[in-house]
């Protein structure tokens, strides 16, 4: 047997390989102790776990290049990771290997307001960029609920959304270019600081690649003007049906608010207990609606929305009176998942999407599924986009309940497909939904996607067994789902 570093989690990673890694990143740039590696066994998706053999923390693009080349030399698989807030197992190190954690590459390299871009390293936390821009009149628009923790590199890899993507678009609509360390260790610049770079839109194609096309080491993002004014409303409804019908009517009237979120009674109760906003506990659902834009325009738009809410049976529409109240409302929404612990020992959330007019139907279906499987389901989601997040509550110590949760989840996602939707609006495929790819796409579709990956990642060493059911060089084996688990905030 080859002599391995005594601390290595797996003896088949040669000592020589580890020593070379150490030379690249230094002693404080790598983890090999099993106890330390445990932190990296999963991301926000905790159902499946896989421990990397080693985690490295490169400080520069050169470090990443050296690491990737070394992995190629030793034929060791590698997977990039940001903050690990992914909810689909996108940075799960399937089969072990090297995890490249990009959290130390967190410099904001350049801000250029005149040309409306920023250049950031992948480890920059989403919210930090917007905080950095405070006072300039500009911000970075994508705002996933985990924005206080998630990194822009991770957002790039998963094409992250967020509440305000309804009006402003998702990550791909805000990325101009990227520096990639390709799976063979070469460095390629995609796009640029300018628009319409001649040739294929590789930037667009690479956003959402879930780490399967290489390691992103720099991102050029578009900056967006701050809205001059906001109006934030809370519509209170006696039935979920009325609330979803209201969403459909708002969009149907050609109004695209900045954000349009639904919370049902179950989640409102938990949020109220946690944050004491003053939500009505007897309401079946509330809609959190925000319009933004010019001061001269927001009142008119808000008024139209209030009228639609009333027409569809809102028993009350409240307008946030101050910026403080607005921020508290958003805190309640963005940290809703943190409040779920009050409801249940474990939970599992899904990320389906349906055409917005189908929201009443899918919500009704979710209720029925909950009753059928005797699983309590609460809802908090990006209603304006048709992006549902049913949260299934259970106790993971009860194996029968766990099976019912899995069955209910599958039924909900299949319903989304049947209604003309998708199984993921913003969390990604990762390993979690890989089994759904065959239902969502025909073999020919997947074959073309496989060819695209083949063009960029022919060896399959980079993020093996992700995204496509045929992933990885070794065949079609998939990780079996055993237990649904707790998820991080989204």
């Amino acid at each position: 047997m080859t002599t391995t570093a005594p601390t290595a989690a797996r003896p088949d990673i040669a000592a020589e390989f580890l020593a070379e890694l150490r030379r690249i990143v230094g002693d404080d740039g790598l983890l090999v102790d099993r106890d330390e590696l445990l932190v990296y066994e999963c991301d926000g998706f905790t159902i499946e776990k896989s421990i990397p053999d080693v985690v490295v923390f490169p400080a520069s693009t050169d470090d990443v290049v050296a690491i990737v080349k070394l992995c190629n030399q030793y034929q060791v698989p590698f997977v990039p990771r940001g903050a690990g807030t992914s909810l689909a197992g996108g940075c799960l190190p399937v089969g072990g290997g090297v995890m490249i954690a990009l959290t130390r590459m967190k410099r904001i390299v350049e801000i250029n307001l005149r040309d409306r871009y920023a250049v950031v390293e992948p480890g920059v936390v989403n919210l930090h960029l917007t905080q950095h821009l405070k006072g300039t009149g500009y911000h970075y628009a994508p705002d996933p609920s985990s924005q206080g923790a998630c990194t822009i590199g991770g957002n790039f890899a998963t094409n992250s959304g967020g509440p305000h993507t309804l009006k402003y678009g998702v990550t791909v609509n805000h990325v101009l270019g990227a520096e990639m360390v390709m799976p063979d260790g070469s460095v390629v610049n995609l796009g640029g600081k300018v628009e319409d770079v001649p040739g294929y839109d590789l930037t667009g194609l690479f956003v959402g690649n879930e780490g399967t096309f290489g390691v992103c080491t720099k991102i050029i993002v578009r900056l967006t003007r701050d809205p001059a004014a906001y109006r934030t409303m809370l519509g209170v409804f006696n039935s979920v049906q009325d609330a979803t019908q209201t969403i459909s009517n708002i969009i149907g009237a050609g109004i695209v608010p900045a954000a349009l979120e639904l919370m049902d009674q179950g989640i409102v109760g938990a949020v109220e207990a946690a944050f004491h906003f003053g939500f009505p506990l007897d309401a079946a659902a509330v809609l959190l609606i925000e319009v933004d834009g010019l001061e001269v325009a927001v009142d008119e738009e808000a008024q139209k929305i209030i009228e639609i809410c009333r027409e569809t049976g809102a028993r009350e529409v409240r307008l946030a009176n101050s910026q403080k109240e607005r921020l508290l409302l958003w805190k309640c929404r963005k940290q809703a998942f943190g409040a779920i612990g009050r409801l249940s020992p474990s939970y599992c959330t899904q990320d389906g999407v349906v055409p917005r007019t189908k929201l009443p139907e899918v919500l009704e279906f979710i209720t029925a599924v909950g009753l059928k499987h005797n699983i309590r389901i609460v809802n908090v989601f990006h209603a304006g986009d048709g992006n549902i997040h049913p949260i299934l509550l259970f106790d993971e110590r009860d194996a029968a309940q766990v099976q019912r949760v899995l069955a209910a989840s599958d039924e909900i996602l299949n319903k989304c497909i049947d209604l003309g939707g998708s199984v993921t609006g913003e969390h990604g495929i990762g390993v979690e939904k890989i089994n759904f790819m065959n239902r969502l796409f025909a073999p020919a579709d997947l074959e073309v996607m496989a060819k695209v990956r083949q063009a960029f990642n022919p060896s399959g060493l980079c993020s093996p067994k992700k995204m496509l059911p045929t992933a990885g060089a070794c065949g079609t084996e998939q990780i079996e789902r055993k237990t649904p688990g707790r998820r991080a905030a989204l």
Partner: protein
Amino acid sequence: MTAVAAAIDEFLPATQTELSRWMAENAEGTARPVYPAGGRTATEFGKPQRPPGISLCTTSLNRVIDFPARDMTITVEAGIRMDELATVLAGEGQRLPVDAPQAHRATLGGLTATNTSGSRRFGMGTMRDYVIGVSAVDSRGTMFKAGGRVVKNVAGYDLCKMLVGSLGTLAVITQLTLKLKPIPESSVLLWTTFDHLGAIEPALERLVTSAARPIALDVLDARAAAAIANEAGLALPDRRAVLCLGVEGTSREVAWQVDQLVQELGPTGPRETEVVSNTDSAKLWFALSEFQVPSDDPVTFRANLLPSRTIEFLQEAERIGCALQAHTGNGIVVGHLPDSMTTVGAAKEQLARLRERARQARGNLTVVHCDAAWKTQLPLFGDFEPSWPLMQKLKRELDPSNLLNPHLTFSAAGTS
């Protein structure tokens, strides 16, 4: 069938299935190059050497598959003409807010494959922001799709982005699902003249933090201003450089923004200011969009630059006598070389100078249109972009026999 396929020079499939079957037969049989065509508004682009092949015309694929207006999405076949699409959408008070020149000929598939856009791109984005689902047929006849019919979706690789702007070199786009926007209540253009192009720079800097939110930020040199005013049939001041701002929204917010913009621009020294609204604004939007269409100009080029470097590029190009339109907020310039440029040598020399300017502005310059005989000497595809080798790999994977638009694949370094 193969023999029949080989004998015709144009094929007009009636259905997507027929198109796919024909492509498969072609690939397995004579394997002739395939030139996808929509409204034939952009067929001139690319290298002059075109191996003989078949023109694959998508114009019969023009059905509306599904228009759930209340979802603000539409699924249509790619051969639908842009004016027809606009009419269908307007019936529900909606639109695709990407400017489409030659809308009476251009097809949605063509607009997508060429990633065409216009002045509204500053505020409304480009095709990549609206295509949420795509069906296409590759060179072997495999019909595939990506994305879907919902506005938010991250399942699978985003092949929509891959195909937008791919110039028909990777697959033939047969069907698209689009995200839509409501038609705004009011649409107004503010036409402001300045003494010269350089005098507009302070105004552009001022606009970086404007209280208004214009959706178009065009700069025109005097030649372009005259051409555009003429095309629009409007009596606008057109003897100087023009800053043309577009504002859309409710009547109230548009009126407020126009006042605000006039006020903000005041100290930057404009000469004449015209507010173009109602039907006149539609005419002006139309003319702004049509300006990019090559006519009998010797060369039409396109440059992409840092927005802050646009004015200096325009000044250089103006000295050569070009007619110029810049979407300055995006750093996109469309230029037509003057008729006086009668030799390829002269055109080459001037384009080299402009290319150098574009390079300095972190950008590139491509030739959209020129005399076929000039093509071998002009920089059709612009400077070498560092990601071209990757693009070539992608092309080889999806079209290994190089059957689709072989004259449009990026050569190693364009033309020097």
